[in-house]
């Protein structure tokens, strides 16, 4: 066996091994280097896996050489490799960006602990993407969740503790719902390997425990991905967490739950069961629309920018789920593309806000007045990302909305086009509030002397901002991978 064949397991094991090393080093500089190296390795491995899968089809890895379905199988296909690249890339970028922000927001003595938990969280998220075993997915989900709770609690404000506690309660209820769902599936099929469950599904299709499992998994995963109205934990968690944590979570954590939902819906249960036996198509459509409008409307009235963009994330999750509810290749393509586009856009926004918090001491609207004068590059980046949230042509957000509209027209639901455009108008309002404060007001007297964020933060954030424009113009990677993953999920030959 060569090293390349071990990549599916190494991608999760290397960050896992980096965590105790960072803990034992007890030195923030060394811990930073170790965890950065591990994330960099994970990113390199993910890109290699992506190429390998694109060239020669899915990769299967039997842990401990126990052949599946008896042993745990790690399986990397188009969808998994796409998410691996997204998560590990964002981790490496956020980590290299976050040092200056971390120095300001977390006491120096806790830095090595932060890096330890960051590595664990990354392990969990990557593990979810590679694992082909239902129970293993749950364990990785809990690894990432437990480390996320601690990362959020590291926020400066005491409200971070309350936010973390609430997330812990909601997240654990969600995770327990997921285990109940997996347990019911195991009772009915006698196996935990996802492909094996799918193979045995026809024998028990439509039976009550299987439909109950589907319902439990849907609710549990909706909690984890903050689908309206199960999003209550998200705004507080994003607002009070340290900037580094907000950037990383906004870009990855909820997205990985979407991945698990896609796996279960389209590979394990099969669309006929999900959309015909249970009215999930209509349920998801209604929740997506409610989220798009309600959360975006709430975002308009926020004065804290982190909270404003957190509500915007809940609204954007609506678009992601809307694509799923179409149950067509175009709709799923829109879902997967929007997961990617929203991840880089929101990642960039929270990174830029982290820079603002560092220079201006906070991110409330009255405080960031005149941002364009003191931090012109950051303000410009926020505008570009805001345009992407709205979905202006030439930005990444436009590509995903284009596919959503296309899917709606293909399904004959032309009225949805008006709703998508209408909710984008709400985004115009909340983005405008930021632009107005940044460009049309003078800076506060005590903040005139604030300076642009340090270069070490501007470069990674700038890369992501450039990414939102690049992926709005050049869509071979995003739409190409997403369309292939979607057709594999739906079993439609291309």
């Amino acid at each position, binding site marked *: 066996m060569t090293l390349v064949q071990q990549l599916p397991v190494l991608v999760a094991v290397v960050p896992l091994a980096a965590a105790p090393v960072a803990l034992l080093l007890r030195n923030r500089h060394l811990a930073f280097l170790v965890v950065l190296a591990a994330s960099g390795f994970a990113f390199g491995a993910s890109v290699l896996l992506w190429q390998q899968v694109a060239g020669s089809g899915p990769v299967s890895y039997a842990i401990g050489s126990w052949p599946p379905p008896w042993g745990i199988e790690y399986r990397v296909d188009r969808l998994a490799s796409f998410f691996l690249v997204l998560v590990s890339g964002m981790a490496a970028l956020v980590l290299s960006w976050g040092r200056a922000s971390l120095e300001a927001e977390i006491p120096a003595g806790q830095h090595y602990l932060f890096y330890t938990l960051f590595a664990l969280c990354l392990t969990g998220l990557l593990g979810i993407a590679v694992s082909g075993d239902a129970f293993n997915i749950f364990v990785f989900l809990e690894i990432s969740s437990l480390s996320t709770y601690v990362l959020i609690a590291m926020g400066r404000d005491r409200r971070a503790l309350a936010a*973390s506690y609430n997330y812990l309660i909601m997240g654990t209820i969600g995770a327990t719902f997921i285990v*109940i769902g997996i347990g019911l599936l195991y009772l009915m099929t006698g196996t935990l390997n996802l492909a094996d469950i799918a193979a045995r599904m026809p024998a028990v299709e439509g039976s009550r425990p299987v439909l109950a499992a589907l319902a439990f998994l849907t609710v549990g995963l909706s909690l984890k991905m903050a689908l309206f109205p199960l999003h209550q934990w998200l705004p507080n968690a994003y607002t009070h967490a340290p900037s580094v944590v907000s950037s990383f979570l906004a870009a990855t954590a909820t997205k990985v739950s979407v991945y698990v939902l896609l796996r279960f819906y389209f590979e394990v249960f099969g669309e006929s069961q999900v959309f015909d036996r249970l009215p999930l198509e209509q349920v998801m459509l209604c929740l997506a629309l409610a989220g798009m409008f309600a959360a975006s409307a709430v975002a308009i009235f926020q004065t804290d920018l982190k909270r404003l963009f957190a509500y915007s994330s809940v609204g954007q999750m609506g678009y992601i789920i809307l694509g799923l509810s179409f149950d067509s290749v175009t709709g799923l393509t829109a879902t997967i593309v929007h997961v990617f586009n929203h991840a880089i856009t929101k990642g960039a926004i929270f990174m830029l806000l982290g820079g603002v918090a560092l220079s201006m001491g906070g991110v409330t609207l009255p405080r960031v007045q005149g941002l364009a004068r003191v931090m012109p590059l950051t303000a410009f980046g926020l505008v570009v990302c805001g345009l992407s949230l709205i979905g202006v042509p030439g930005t990444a957000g436009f590509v995903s909305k284009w596919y959503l509209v296309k899917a709606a027209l293909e399904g004959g639901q032309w009225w949805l086009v008006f709703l998508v455009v209408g909710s984008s108008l709400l985004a115009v309002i909340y983005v405008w509030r930021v632009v107005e404060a940044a460009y049309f007001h003078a800076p506060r007297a005590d903040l005139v002397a604030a300076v642009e964020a340090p270069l070490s933060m501007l470069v990674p954030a700038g890369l992501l901002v450039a990414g939102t424009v690049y992926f709005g113009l050049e869509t071979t990677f995003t739409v190409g991978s997403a369309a292939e993953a979607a057709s594999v999920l739906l079993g439609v030959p291309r």
Partner: protein
Amino acid sequence: MSLAGHFSYFATISLMIAGLFIVMARGNLIKKLVGLGIFQTSVYLLYVAPGKLIGGTAPIIQEGFAVYANPLPHVLILTAIVVGVATLALGLALVVRIREAYGSIEEDDILAKDRE
């Protein structure tokens, strides 16, 4: 479909609902964690109980034994117990920190202090 035959399921569901109810209805942060613990524990029962076969033995091939119990759920639940313990420990640690920061572990008091 006798009551006795489904006893373990009735017990599981009752515990599940009781736990979830406590999490939602109680304002005391410790009591919420107790409810969460009961909710999680009920799932252990959901997995383990069907693995037991009456008259079944440990799955070691030997003459004279034909019925074996399924050991896999027990192994899975060992993992789930570890996750549950970690969650409970982390939750309690957070409550300690909340108590230090807010001087209270009642949800209403904490919300009121945040609004100030």
